[in-house]
């Protein structure tokens, strides 16, 4: 456990280095931030104020120090703490991602179990088709298709923006499709394998009801790889959210970071990326703990 934490810390350090490098790669923000009439002296002043005139290693150390104190600096564009923007966008993005994850798990588990347990070849084929399709469809295209169908042709749902429950429907569905396809495949494979186990055979011979065998025993045994995958899937969902947010004009992190990148707003870029990555690592840690809870063999 300690070793795991240590590894996580080192990865985190590496991450800060990467983020720092990436943000610096986007180029010198000075010309973008300062108005065009700014003089060379203004530019010099600006650079000095933000420590941009120091050498790179020093900048990194300063950055590291600040980050550990939760200080991501002040946005170049808006002169407000960068972390504020991240926090503002975090809520909507997490809600979108969370709901999409929930939908994906429900649909994925449901279809996966159905396909694994059903003896009907056509059900299996349909589910597999859905899984293949879901993994191949670009989310932005799906979003556009859904918007056309349900907002334009059949005016049932809003096409963009944020506010009512109705606004959630299309973005959540769009975002969840890829994830639910992957979860379906994983569930189906693991459930099929679990259903072949000796103990499942034994439970049938003992006369246990089929529902209990499938949903209590087989599922529990199949769930470990699925739960592990959910951690990874969360990261993918966060990435997908960025694109989906642009399609639906969803006021989340996606909008914020794309804007920040286009305007080379280092502090906001750094803040967003680091917060996202930390969240991802925390989720993975939570996944590991959940696995230990689920599988008694892992509890050393």
């Amino acid at each position, binding site marked *: 456990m300690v070793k795991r934490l240590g*590894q996580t810390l*080192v*990865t985190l350090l*590496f*991450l800060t280095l*990467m983020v720092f490098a*990436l*943000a610096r*790669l*986007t*180029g010198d923000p000075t010309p973008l931030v300062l108005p065009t009439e700014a003089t060379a002296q203004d530019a010099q002043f600006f650079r000095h104020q933000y420590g941009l005139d120091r050498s790179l290693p020093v900048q990194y150390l300063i950055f590291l120090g600040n980050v550990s104190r939760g200080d991501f600096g002040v946005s170049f564009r808006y002169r407000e703490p960068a972390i504020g923007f991240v926090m503002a966008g975090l809520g909507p993005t997490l809600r979108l991602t969370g709901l999409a994850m929930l939908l994906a798990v429900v649909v994925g588990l449901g279809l996966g179990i159905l*396909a694994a347990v059903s003896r009907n*070849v056509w059900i*299996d*084929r349909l589910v*597999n088709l859905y899984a*293949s*399709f879901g*993994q*191949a*469809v*670009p*989310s*932005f*295209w799906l979003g*556009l*298709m859904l*918007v*056309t169908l349900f907002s*334009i*042709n059949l005016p049932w749902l809003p096409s963009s923006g944020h506010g009512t429950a109705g606004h959630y429907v299309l973005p959540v569905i769009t975002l969840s499709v890829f994830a639910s396809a992957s979860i379906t*495949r*994983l569930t*189906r*494979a693991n459930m*099929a*394998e679990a259903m072949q186990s000796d103990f499942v055979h034994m439970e049938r011979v003992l006369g246990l009801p089929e529902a209990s065998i499938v949903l209590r025993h087989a599922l529990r045994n199949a769930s470990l790889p699925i739960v592990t995958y959910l951690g990874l899937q969360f*990261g*993918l969902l*966060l*990435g*997908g959210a*960025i*694109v989906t947010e*642009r399609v639906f004009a969803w006021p989340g992190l996606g909008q914020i*970071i*794309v804007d920040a*990148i*286009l305007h*080379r707003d280092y502090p906001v*870029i750094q803040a*967003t*990326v680091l917060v*996202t*990555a930390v969240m*991802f*690592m925390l989720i993975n840690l939570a996944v590991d703990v959940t696995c230990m809870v689920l599988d008694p063999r892992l509890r050393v």
Partner: protein
Amino acid sequence: MSAIEQEAGGRGRPPMLALACCVLLVIVAVLGDIATPYAKDFADLSATLAPPFWQDGGSLAHLLGTDTLGRDLLSRLIAGTRISLLTAGAAIFVAGTIGVLLGLLAGYAGGLVDAIVMRAVDAFLALPFILMALALVAALGSGVENMILVMIVTNWARYARLVRSEVLSIKGRDFVTLARIAGLAPHLIAFRHILPNALNSITVLALLDIGRAIILESSLSFLGLGIQPPEVSWGLMLADGKAYMSFAWWITTLPGLTIVATVMAFNALGDWLKLRFDPRAAL
């Protein structure tokens, strides 16, 4: 194993439809602009927004219709095939090579080198790849070469991880120890013995990655950060048609369907190969 997989895998035959699609796509990609009925940016302003031939107002002159500038959709789809497939293919190839080399290094050298490489891998995998892609694009700009670079950076890590675990599992085996005692240089052992064993998994990963890369590229192009005009990309075509969805559905829908079909074909091939190499992995 699904019924479909059983049918295909059991007879040792690849999924024919998927294989045919992939072959067709590769051929089209290689032929490039030669294969298009019209030049990809030939704008026939007298035939703008023509629907596909099966709809009212469509004609056989433009099988899949035209866009707002009267450019033939079919030609642009074909032209886009080249860009999408070549960028994805080139990127995966380079990413794979880098990843494999680093994985070999990490697995074989062990110790500090291994630790450093693996922490880098973890860090790269910790970031959602779109995030990284966006940052790189903003730094380097858009366009074909930068797209390839972006896809290389976001993809190498999984190959490194894969190859490293293969190395570790093979390292302990007897034939490697024998080779080492016989005085064979480490890099020779790595290339001659370890790599062929790992090649199967690498190929499967590469095939499955092509789909991912295509989606990544089209996502970026859609956002305006990827392939730029006058080059053609499916994602770009999709973005062009966004505003006309309600009355000119084909401009957006057809490129999207092309992406879906392409990715499904490569995925099906990759899945079949995976099942063939390791029948136990019913994934």
